[in-house]
């Protein structure tokens, strides 16, 4: 099954309810998200472990990240800070949360808030469709705030569908590579648009 013959599954999900992460420094986490970024605290569960077992007592607290979506943290009492240093930094930073803002002024405002804090913006990048700022939160998690640079077009969606179809094929074979991916995707494009191509000039 490829995207050329999509199976029409009903798509009834509605974005992020919450994403949750452990924290070992709740004071810094609350300072960063509530006081620096201005994300309201909207819920907290204060729990005596999970029943009679050895599960630690914990506080599970939530920040409003807009659009009704929430970012949550667990703080476990008596659990020593832990970080898996065996994970390569590249892979560690691949896991990140990107929060949406609508425009340039909003992005600049969040950059201003970060730069005035103990957690200044580390990087600002204009990608093809979005511009993003990046910061490492007090827990070491990479966080991105991003704004659209242009609308996503039907062409972008077609390209994305062909990319994942090519990736599905190449990743199922030995020694996948970007070179093999490009070649496979080119065949998918040629097959899909095999009609007489129209010559283009940029005059």
């Amino acid at each position: 099954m490829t995207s050329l013959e999509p199976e029409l599954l009903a798509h009834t999900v509605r974005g992020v309810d919450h994403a949750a992460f452990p924290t070992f420094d709740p004071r810094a986490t609350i300072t960063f998200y509530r006081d620096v970024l201005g994300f309201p605290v909207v819920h907290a569960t204060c729990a005596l472990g999970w029943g009679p077992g050895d599960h630690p007592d914990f506080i599970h607290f939530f920040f409003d990240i807009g659009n009704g979506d929430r970012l949550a943290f667990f703080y476990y009492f008596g659990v020593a800070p832990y970080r898996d240093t065996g994970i390569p930094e590249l892979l560690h930073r691949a896991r990140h949360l990107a929060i949406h803002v609508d425009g340039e002024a909003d992005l600049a405002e969040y950059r201003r808030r970060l730069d005035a804090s103990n957690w200044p913006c580390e990087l600002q990048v204009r990608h093809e469709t979005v511009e993003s700022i990046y910061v490492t939160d007090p827990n070491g998690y990479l966080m991105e705030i991003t704004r659209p640079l242009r609308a996503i077009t039907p062409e972008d969606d077609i390209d994305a569908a062909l990319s994942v179809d090519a990736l599905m094929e190449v990743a199922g074979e030995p020694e996948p590579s970007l070179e093999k991916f490009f070649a496979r995707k080119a065949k998918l494009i040629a097959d899909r648009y095999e009609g007489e191509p129209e010559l283009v000039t940029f005059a």
Partner: protein
Amino acid sequence: MTTLFVLDVEDFRPLAEVAGKDPDVTVRRRGPYLEVAAPGSIRIDRNAAGRRNAVWFSSVAAVEDGRVARWDREELVIEPDGPEE
């Protein structure tokens, strides 16, 4: 023919425009893509294309009958598949 596909959106269209200045290069529309083809190598100068970093390094959609031989801060070069390949 060495063939490079770029998506025909404003971010990537300039690559096809720059490549198309070479008389050996033809540019055709294939669905939402611009198909850039040449009997030999396709060379695109980064400055001429005027693409910022993140866009430059995500501008190749696909490559047929060739391989990316160079793709750095100065130039993108697609070379024809050699006989050994």
